[in-house]
């Protein structure tokens, strides 16, 4: 009998596991895949290391900062700032046809860029910052109001509104067309006011730290152990049955598999509420390895968020991939002590899950090649054309995301409607991860921590 069984060895599941194991609970984390990480994975291909998911960590505050999600996370997991070895970004950019805005981890750069590109908006932008600072994650009753409505009240220039939405939606909006004001404020702070950073060794460094810590505390991690069903008796999960037929028992179950996905595991015939859709926003990503550093081609931006029209559209595209907008990330362009070995350019674009899922194996391989080219051609309108220096490539699609995460539709940021308190219809079953609340790496870790604290450590 375990004290807690956790479904999913991604950021949230591992963080929850560390909290519980630290307080001497018997914990088992079950992961269907052959490796840890979920949405934020890493792999080795043809002799090179790749990251999936992570472009950059958000919420990066300098060592010694006591406030904010990163500081809280480090204290809760008993990690030192140096353990994550985060290097700050060099500087990023929002690129639209008629304006560009640069930003880095000092809000003053964005302030001066707004003043340069939108001189009439200087005072309004300060009002926006004040409103974002004022927003309180825990008590604010305006959390669910439309950010578009709120920004419409605060700013006069529609183009500035679109340019601010572009990075914030790309890095964490499960809602189409709009964001909740609460989520907008959290994302604005995490990206523009705190900042972006990356460990030199990438996401694997974070995951390896978490797993090592979990195991050192006596936690058990079972890979290749998908959950086939949760057996329900008297309003509780009584047994967890694995795909292999193995049966486990736990006093509590914490699932990061997603809301709808977890409900379907319960064998009590819980109807999956049709009003709670699992989210539809998914991505394709192209990864190009170069034979030189991006800086040698004149590209020194860490992240470039681009959009080729005045309006930014945030919804699944009718086409296989949305070629109008995307995110270009160069992991080389962080302020490391020494440069990364290979030059890398990654491009992320919105994608249509149904299209990619419907392809047979041969068509899938061909379409990957075709859309790799199309996405890259779209992106090089905004950054130096790097195509002649490419020595290796890889690409993932929404179906890759499903394979690694098990999330319906390959939805990267989960369901638009979150279950903030993590509770379900069963007394001892809770959810954590993207469908509970916060997204991104720091957000997922905080989700695992808070759900473990709230539901599994109070007796």
């Amino acid at each position, binding site marked *: 009998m375990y004290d807690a069984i956790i479904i999913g060895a991604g950021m949230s599941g591992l963080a929850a596991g560390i909290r519980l194991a630290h307080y001497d609970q018997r914990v088992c984390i079950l992961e269907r895949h052959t490796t840890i990480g979920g949405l934020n994975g890493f792999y080795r291909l043809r002799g090179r290391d790749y990251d999936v998911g992570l472009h950059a960590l958000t919420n990066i505050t300098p060592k*010694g900062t006591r*406030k904010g999600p990163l500081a*809280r996370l*480090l*204290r809760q997991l008993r990690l030192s700032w140096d353990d994550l070895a985060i290097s700050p970004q060099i500087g990023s950019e929002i690129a639209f046809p008629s304006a560009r805005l640069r930003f880095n981890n000092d809000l003053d750069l964005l302030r001066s860029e707004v003043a340069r590109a939108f001189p009439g908006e200087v005072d309004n932008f300060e009002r926006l910052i004040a409103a974002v600072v004022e927003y309180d994650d825990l008590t604010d009753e305006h959390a669910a109001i439309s950010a578009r409505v709120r920004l419409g009240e605060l700013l006069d220039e529609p183009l500035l509104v679109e340019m601010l939405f572009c990075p914030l939606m790309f890095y964490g909006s499960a809602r189409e067309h709009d964001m909740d004001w609460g989520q907008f404020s959290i994302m604005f702070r995490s990206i523009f006011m705190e900042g972006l950073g990356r460990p030199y060794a990438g996401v694997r460094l974070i995951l390896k730290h978490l797993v090592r810590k979990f195991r050192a505390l006596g936690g058990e991690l079972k890979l290749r152990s998908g959950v086939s069903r949760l057996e329900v008796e008297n309003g509780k999960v009584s047994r967890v049955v694995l795909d292999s037929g193995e049966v486990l028992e736990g006093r509590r179950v914490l699932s990061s598999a997603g809301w709808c996905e977890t409900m379907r595991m319960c064998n009590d015939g819980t109807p999956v509420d049709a009003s709670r859709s699992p989210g539809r926003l998914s991505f394709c990503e192209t990864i190009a390895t170069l034979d030189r550093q991006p800086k040698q081609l004149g590209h020194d931006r860490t992240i470039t968020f681009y959009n080729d029209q005045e309006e930014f559209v945030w919804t699944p595209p009718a086409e296989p991939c949305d070629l109008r907008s995307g995110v270009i990330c160069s992991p080389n362009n962080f302020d490391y002590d020494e440069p990364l070995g290979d030059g890398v350019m990654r491009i992320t674009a919105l994608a249509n899950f149904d299209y990619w899922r419907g392809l047979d194996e041969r068509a899938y391989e061909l379409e990957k090649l075709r859309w790799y080219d199309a996405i890259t051609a779209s992106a090089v309108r905004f950054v130096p054309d790097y195509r002649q220096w490419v020595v290796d490539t890889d690409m993932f699609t929404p179906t890759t995301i499903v394979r690694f995460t098990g999330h319906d539709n390959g939805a990267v940021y989960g369901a638009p409607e979150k279950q903030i308190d993590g509770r379900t219809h069963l007394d001892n079953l809770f959810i954590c991860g993207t469908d509970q609340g916060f997204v991104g790496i720091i957000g997922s870790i905080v989700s695992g*921590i*808070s759900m473990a604290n709230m539901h599994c450590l109070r007796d």
Partner: protein
Amino acid sequence: MTKDEIRAEVLDILADIAPDEDLSSLDDSKSFREQMELDSMDFLDIVMELRKRHRVQIPEDDYVNLASMDSTVEYLHPMMKDM
């Protein structure tokens, strides 16, 4: 445990929770919240570490006593003096 030993133990818990913090300059009469910006999650951790390490049970209504080092030691001393 003497009051000094209890103080050392609480200090050890704080060092565990916040490894990057310089605790040598901690003012025992001032609140932890003010000096270290600890939040409610951190106070819960102090309570749970005391339970884990010493089996001391602190009811939620008594958390206010953990505001500063002085008040924490005063509060814990009757419970821990015979340990």
